Structures are given as C-alpha cells and as structure tokens.
C-alpha cells in the first residue's frame, strides 16, 4: 500500500472539523482468495483507489480439469460423466447439451416421451440450481437465513432428481437416443407436492430476502449492466435477461419438448443485482409451470430410440425394461463410431446458454470437443462490472452474477 500526501482541500476539511487524526487516502492492490467465501476457487486481484475498484484481474484455473483435452482420449459414451462434472449442481443440462450435439452427428431421432422427460429433468435441475445461486448470494451478503433456506429448499428438488435418475447430483440421465429411466406415479406425486410447497416458499423468499431493506441496499443499483454492455460483453442467461435482452435458447431454438410447452421468459430492464436475483426467482415459478404441464400432458411411449432399443438383448429387456422400466445398454454401445462431421448445440442451462461444439473424424473418440459454459462467459462480464464499483460491492456483484468457478474452469 502506498499513501499519498493530502491535497489542499482535504487539509482544509480536516482543519474545519478540528480533527487531529491524519486521514490518508490509500491506493493499492488486494488479493481476494483463492479460498475465500467471497471468491470461491478463484483469486481476485483487486486494484484499489480508496475503496473504489479501479481494475480487477481474475485468476481463474484453480479447479481446471481439462475436460476438452481428456475428451480426445475417451469414447463418446465414457465422456458423459466427465462433461457433467464442471457444473456439479446443474449436471442434467451439461449432460443434455453434449448429448444433443452427439445426436446431431449420429443422426438419431428421439421419441416424444423421452423429449418430455428431458425437459422434466432439466427444469427440476434448473430450480435446484437457482435456489443454490440465491442461497450463495444470501451468504455473500451476510444473510445466513437465505443461505439455509436456499440449500434446504434445493434438497427437495434434488430428492426428486434422485428418485428419477438414481443419483443425487451427477445424474448421467440423458443418453444418445433417449433417457435412462422412466417416470413413475410416485415421482409425479412427489413433484406436485414439492410445487405446492415451493410456491408458498417463494412468497416467503420475497418477504424475508428481496423486500428486506438491508438486502435491497446491497443489491439495488449495484453492478449495473446496461443493455448495450450486456450484448457487447456477451453475457448469458439470467444476467442477460435482467439487462433487458429477450433471449432464451428455449424460445429461440427449442430443444427437448419446449416448443410444446407454454411458459414465459422473465425480463427486467434495471440490470442491477436485484434484477438478476428477481429474474432467477421468477424463473423458478415458470419452471414449476412447465413441470405441471409435463406431468399432465406427457405422452405414452418408449423412452429410447428404436434404433438402439432393438439392439438390447431380449433377456436384458425382460429383466430391466419390463420390470423396472430402466434402460441398460449392451457393452458394445460404448464404442460406437459416428460418421465424419461436426455439430454445434446450445441449451439454456441454469446459469445461461451452454454451447457444445463437437468435431468427429470417424473414430470412436471426438477429434475436438469445445465446451462453452455460462460461467466461462461471465468471466469478462464480472471483470468489467467490478470496474468503478466499491470494494464492499465486490461480493454482491459476484453473488448476483451466480458465477460458479468450476464451471468456468471446466
């Protein structure tokens, strides 16, 4: 830290107040993180002038797992558990985006029931992801109740995913041509019950968190991102929609069953931290609307494309499909060779748009897999938003962006 001598105005002010303590404006650098409740697994190198942030340098990469390089050494099916690790709390979307890209290369059609089930799992996961994000935002602001509520509510949705897929967080539910397990009446009842509970809870969320004057003071007019800046910096998801841009992959390029479902996209104009939080809160409500429609309208039928379903040996079909309604694929499935070509897919994950770009050279392994996660695109947004903010607002900007370091690092 370097101290600067006082200028004339400051000296006059000090003399007028009659204070004898010397007041020194300070310029310097500050390291936040790498392990810090306000930075996650990331070092934020902050250049300060007084308590105004002049510039930040984000040192990401503490949890880099090299998914893109590892994908050149794994078969397509073996990659499913790998690509969903980066966003451990949004794994259905990571899984889904990758599978859509692979299906485009393979040229597989997906039965309608499987499409609905994909939407179902994705929306349950979106609610869980948003509740996690709101909980993290709350604890960054020192609001412990919000943190515990977020994680407590999330538990209900994770339990539904567990009942549906058999795994709590890394579900590996979506496979080329369909999904792994079928929906049962018990899960439907569970979900309807959870929706009733969550609706009541969302009102409480507003009362205790968003109408709370101290929370509002920390979020309102903090980290304001204008519409032009949001477009220029390439923001995604709720952050983009809080700045007034109507863009959602579910509407622009519908995948799964979204073209048959009726829902709205919440858009705010303010572009500040509060708007980003409220967009996520309202998306939870919209996701629950989608879930109700899916439970009501889900068509009967197979959950795996006929092309793959016919290849399952009859004994296995009898054992798993006819008793537990579960797909267990034969071993040779693991090393299929897609034709030469490339595919790009995009899905709307919990935090925003997720892009997969797969290049195939005809071997059982991808030649190149590019994974652009929402948090990866938030790196630049975060850097730009911090400039000119107060140091105390660093955490509220971070929390309101719903930035998740492992997802950015991949």
């Amino acid at each position, binding site marked *: 830290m370097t101290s600067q001598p006082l200028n004339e105005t400051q000296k006059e002010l000090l003399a007028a107040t009659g204070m004898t303590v010397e007041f020194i404006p300070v310029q310097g650098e500050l390291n936040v993180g790498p392990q810090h409740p306000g930075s996650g697994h990331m070092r934020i190198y902050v250049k300060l002038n007084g308590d105004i942030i002049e510039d930040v340098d984000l040192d*990401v*990469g503490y949890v*880099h797992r*090299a998914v*893109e*390089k*590892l994908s*050149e*050494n794994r078969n397509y099916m073996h990659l499913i558990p790998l690509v969903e690790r980066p966003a451990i709390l949004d794994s259905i979307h990571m899984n889904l985006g990758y599978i859509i890209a692979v299906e485009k290369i393979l040229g597989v059609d997906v039965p309608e029931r499987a499409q609905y089930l994909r939407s179902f799992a994705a929306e349950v996961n979106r609610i869980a992801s948003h509740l996690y994000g709101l909980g993290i935002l709350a604890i960054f602001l020192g609001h412990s109740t919000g943190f515990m509520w977020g994680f407590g509510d999330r538990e209900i949705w994770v339990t539904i995913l567990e009942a549906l897929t058999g795994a709590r967080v890394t579900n590996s539910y979506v496979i080329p041509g369909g999904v792994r397990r079928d929906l049962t009446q018990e899960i439907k009842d569970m979900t309807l019950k959870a929706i009733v509970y969550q609706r009541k809870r969302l009102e409480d969320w507003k009362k205790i968190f968003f109408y709370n004057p101290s929370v509002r003071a920390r979020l309102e007019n903090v980290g304001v991102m204008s519409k032009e800046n*949001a*477009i*220029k*910096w*390439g923001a995604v998801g709720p952050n*983009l929609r809080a700045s007034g*841009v*109507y*863009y959602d992959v579910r509407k*622009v*390029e519908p995948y799964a069953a979204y073209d048959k479902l009726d829902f709205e996209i919440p858009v705010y104009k303010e572009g500040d931290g509060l708007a980003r939080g409220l967009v996520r809160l309202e998306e939870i409500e919209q996701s629950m609307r989608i879930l109700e429609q899916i439970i009501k309208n889900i068509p009967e039928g197979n959950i795996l494309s006929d092309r793959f379903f016919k290849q399952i040996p009859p004994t296995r079909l009898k054992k798993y499909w006819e008793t537990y309604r579960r797909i267990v694929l034969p071993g040779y499935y693991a090393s299929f060779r897609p034709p030469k070509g490339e595919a*790009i897919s*995009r899905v709307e994950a919990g935090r925003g*748009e997720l*892009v997969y*770009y797969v*290049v195939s050279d005809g071997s059982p392994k991808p*030649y*190149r897999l*590019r994974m*652009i996660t929402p948090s*990866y*695109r938030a*790196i*630049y947004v975060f850097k730009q938003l911090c400039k000119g903010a107060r140091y105390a607002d660093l955490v509220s900007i971070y929390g309101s962006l719903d930035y998740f370091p492992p997802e950015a*690092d991949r």
Partner: protein
Amino acid sequence: MSEVIKNAINELQSKFKCQVRVESERRINIVVDKSFIIDVAKYLKSLGFDHVKSVTGIDYPEQERLEVVYHISSYSNLDLAKIIIALRTSVSYKDPSLPSLYPVFESAWTGERETYEMLGIRFEGHPDLRRLFLDEDFEGVYPLRKSFKIKLEGIFVDKPATK
C-alpha cells in the same frame, strides 16, 4: 432463410472471397483467409451479429495447420439469433498468428485468451494476451495440440512395486 441473409451471402462471396456453405436454416459456415477476417467480422457486425459465442482452435498436425473457428450470433435481433455463423480461418505452424477480433466483438476476449494458451495461436491486437487457466510455471508444448499426449493408466497396469 430470409432475403437479408441471402444478400449477405452473395456479398460475402463476391466482396471478401469467402467460401460460404449454408448447412441448414440455422447454421452457416464461412471459410475466410486470415487477412480478410477483420473485414468480414465488421461486415457481419453491421448486419446485426453482435457477439461471439465461442472461439475454438483445432489442431491438424498432418497438414501442419491450426484452424480457428469463431461462432457468431446475435442478441439484439431475434431472427438473426436463430442463426449461428461459424467463421473459420487457418494459420500455419510456422506463423501461428492472426488479427484479433477483440476490436470488433469484445466478447471474444475470454475465448481468444484461452485459445492462445491452449494452442499457442497469437491474436494480434488482443489487449491482455496472457495465460488464463494454466499454471504460471506450466512447461512443455501447448496442451490442446495433438502432440501433447496425456499419460494414461489402464485399469490393469502391471507396475513393479516401488522399492
């Protein structure tokens, strides 16, 4: 495919000598020489394609070349938002540099920085071309080039017990 896009494709082919391939309603592929890439990017931006989704580098060791793919799309225009343009260009191993698209699309900042550290492609004009994910003391070739081999351990490895 709308009239605007059809006209744009004709213009691109005649003016900038691009090879344009329309793959489907929503996907367009443009191959361009690296000396024209800034002009093409500026032209695309004037049409309403306002952000870069991803910057990808692909290594082709037999041909000793690296391919750079920019995926460009739009936020402000909902019709253009349905389209993703893949803007491709190639650089050789001997001179792995090309002009950065940062002055045109600011959102290319992260992608170009990562492509630089993973494949060693220099983006001339990028304001902050430093390492992003790797350690500061990481040594050896660039990790996403095919010459970088990962040491793999099989499930059944007969390793002698360490003495």
